[in-house]
């Protein structure tokens, strides 16, 4: 029996609709950018104090920390993991460093920052070890360590706050000073981005992170060590959280036991908005930074629009949910289109 005959007698009762959603997948960053622009214009029309230089720089400094953490979280998510402990790591590093500088007022800001990074790296190493060498699920490991780090923060502080008057001016200056007319926080964030661009795109290890996330089986056959990759991503995440701890305490000029509680959720939201795939393997720095900015703008714009601050969490939750569902729909659309292309 010949095929050609079969083809001619084929009933064509199958609906052959191409999914339009699939197109969104190709233009995610641009789409996000357009969305941000529209949002900014809308907010500006409602409240003209939005696009003032002061407010913009305020937004940028606020978003700086969020985006630094999002860079690390992106790598964790790319390996199909998650890190819920970053808020606690941030608090612990911020608290220890704040105590140290309040007792040693001569500490150079650079030393303080390095100290924070060091503490964060230690925290990240513990998690990386649990996940890679003991095979603990990332959600369980980081949930447990979140509690432990948070508890340690309270223990270290004895339940007391460290306030601005206890901190040396040079320390508070980390977040408030300017370098070449640009806020230091923003400069630090830019340095982190630059480092990330190089690390992710131009080193073997950076690409191995994506390889493990994209196809762990192949990675094994290629001889890439999954354990090494896990250790690296959680340690990096820890280091960035530690850095953020110092920046946070310096910016808000106070270190508390409950600093940044639940901040990990905003960070994860930024990543998901930025198109990082929860299934691993995919995630672009540009997307994640845009995602962080969107969250930052929303947080800044809500009070200006007279939206109660208590709506913030609800909106954030809805956005995450909508973003993950959109991701799935786009993916399904792409798959459906691929199937339609296959001639049966």
């Amino acid at each position, binding site marked *: *029996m010949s*095929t050609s005959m*079969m083809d001619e*007698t*084929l*009933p064509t*009762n*199958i*609906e*052959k609709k191409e999914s339009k959603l699939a197109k969104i997948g190709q233009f995610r960053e641009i789409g996000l950018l357009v969305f941000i622009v529209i949002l900014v214009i809308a907010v500006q029309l409602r409240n003209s104090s939005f696009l003032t230089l002061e407010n913009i720089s305020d937004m940028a400094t606020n978003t700086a920390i969020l985006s630094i953490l999002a860079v690390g979280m992106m790598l964790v998510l790319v390996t199909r993991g998650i890190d819920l402990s970053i808020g606690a790591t941030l608090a612990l590093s911020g608290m220890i460093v704040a105590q140290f500088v309040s007792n040693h007022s001569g500490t150079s800001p650079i030393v303080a920052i390095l100290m924070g990074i060091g503490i964060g790296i230690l925290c990240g190493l513990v998690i990386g070890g649990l996940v890679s060498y003991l095979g603990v699920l990332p959600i369980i490991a980081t949930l447990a360590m979140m509690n432990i780090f948070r508890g340690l923060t309270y223990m270290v502080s004895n339940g007391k706050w460290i306030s601005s008057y206890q901190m040396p001016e040079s320390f508070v200056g980390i977040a408030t000073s300017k370098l070449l007319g640009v806020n230091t926080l923003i400069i630090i964030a830019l340095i982190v981005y630059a480092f990330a661009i*190089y690390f992710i*795109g*131009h*080193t*073997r290890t950076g*690409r191995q992170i*994506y*390889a493990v*996330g*994209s*196809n762990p*089986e*192949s*990675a094994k*056959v*290629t*001889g*890439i060590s999954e354990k090494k990759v896990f250790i690296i991503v959680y340690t990096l995440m820890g280091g960035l959280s530690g850095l953020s701890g110092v920046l946070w305490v310096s910016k808000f000029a106070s270190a508390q036991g409950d600093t940044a509680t639940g901040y990990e959720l905003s960070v994860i939201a930024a990543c998901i908005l930025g198109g990082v*795939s929860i299934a691993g*393997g*995919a995630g672009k720095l540009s997307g994640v930074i845009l995602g962080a900015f969107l969250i930052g703008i929303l947080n800044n714009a809500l009070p200006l629009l007279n939206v109660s601050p208590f709506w913030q969490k609800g909106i954030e939750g809805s956005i995450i949910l909508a973003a993950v569902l959109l991701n799935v729909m786009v993916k399904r659309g792409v798959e*459906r289109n*691929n*199937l*339609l292309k*296959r*001639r*049966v």
Partner: protein
Amino acid sequence: MGETVLELRGITKKFPGVTALNNVSFVLEKGQIHALMGENGAGKSTFIKVITGVHKPDEGAMILDGKIVSFANPNEAKAAGIAAIYQHVTNYPDLNVTENIFMGHEKVSPTTKRLLWKEMHEEAKRILQSLGSSINPKQDMGTLSVAQQQIVEIAKAISTNARIIIMDEPTAALTARESEELYRIAEDLRDRGTAIIFISHRFEDMYRLASQVTVLRDANYIGSWAVNDISNDNLIVAMVGREINQVFPSKTHDIGEEIFRVESLGKVGYFADVSFTLRKGEILGLTGLVGAGRTELCETLFGIEKYDSGFIYLHGKEIKFKNPKDAMKQGIGYLPEDRQKQGLILPWGIGRNITLPTLESFTKGGWLHEKTESLKAKELAEKLNVKAQSVFDLVSSLSGGNQQKVSVAKLLMTDLDIIILDEPTKGVDIGAKSAIYEIINELAYQGYGVILVSSEMPEVIGLSDRVAIMREGRMVKVMDPQEITQESILAAAMGEMPQGGETICLPV
């Protein structure tokens, strides 16, 4: 030529409960395309994994360029110039072509260890062009067709300067034209002095390319011949190890009235316009090449997947089902292809596995009666002659054949009209195979309508009353008993008429 590059002597590899390779030998020469053939489960995959350093052999020696080597990991094999292209493409769909080619042996700047993207893209482009392909190296791997991905895999092997390339079923998912492209590339590589181990189920591939063929069967080395020196029939005997019909029970079942009818069933991207009927007490063989859509069709008939068009009738009435439970309730049972992943709960005992589909029948007022349950399970397991001590023995501790019997026992618990068996003897040793054939025949005798999906030609011919053949998502032919011959089935499955012995392929 004639210079030996790789020799394996007396390689044995055992896994818990299975001997995957038993005293296997192999000689590969420079510039040779060497076909490795054997049925599913003959040990080919393990053989490749030993060569590529994924598995360490328990016994035997591997000699590369006259020196005994032992690879601790795949990287060492790669460094020694051995590359493998696997059956299921193993790539990184989210990464671009260049990265897929260079993953593991990237070009880096000697001083800063920075990745040299420009050089890699250029090199990738050069290799791809040398293979006659115009794939853009910056494209994401996931956006390429299977054939294109296959070419990238070959480019990857070339980029490692591999002297030995293993191709595991590279043509399985390719069209005839794409296969031809691949043959050209393989020949080109051979002429450049690369030794190629070519694994395929298609006789066509072997005749077209290989100069030497080595056959494995049931983990054993059967022999190695120059392709010109061995006849088709002898090769089949070497692979199958028995004459067709030899091990099959005589057909004793009576075929009754039509009970099942499928009309122009379709699922976008998988199959279209599938129609056939099934009668009571009939065994309908369903065969076709890998990727022809058989498993997708069966999963749809069992409610795992949804169909987009067409109708299914049972006892003359149209039926619809939302899920497997529904399908079973209406009388359709399915023995899935992958018994370890889809069929059984390995960490559970025999009894619990058997009763899982029919737990309700052991519940009274919500309570599970474990005693009745294990007695019933015992009864069925004994009927199917499952070799174990107790119904509490873990299924994971059973041999493949006995695991399959447990899977079949699950179906016998329910009140079914139709039983679909998807590759029931895959990975089952010879002895257990005949026991399963016996069981299949018995099922028909009992009055079930049986759909037997199989890639093993002797099985299909030996057991089926009629044979349906699928090709590229369509049911191209349903053969009546008098039409069934190995040649006619193969011709229908391949989509071309056999010309002498040359296009023969065993669609396993």
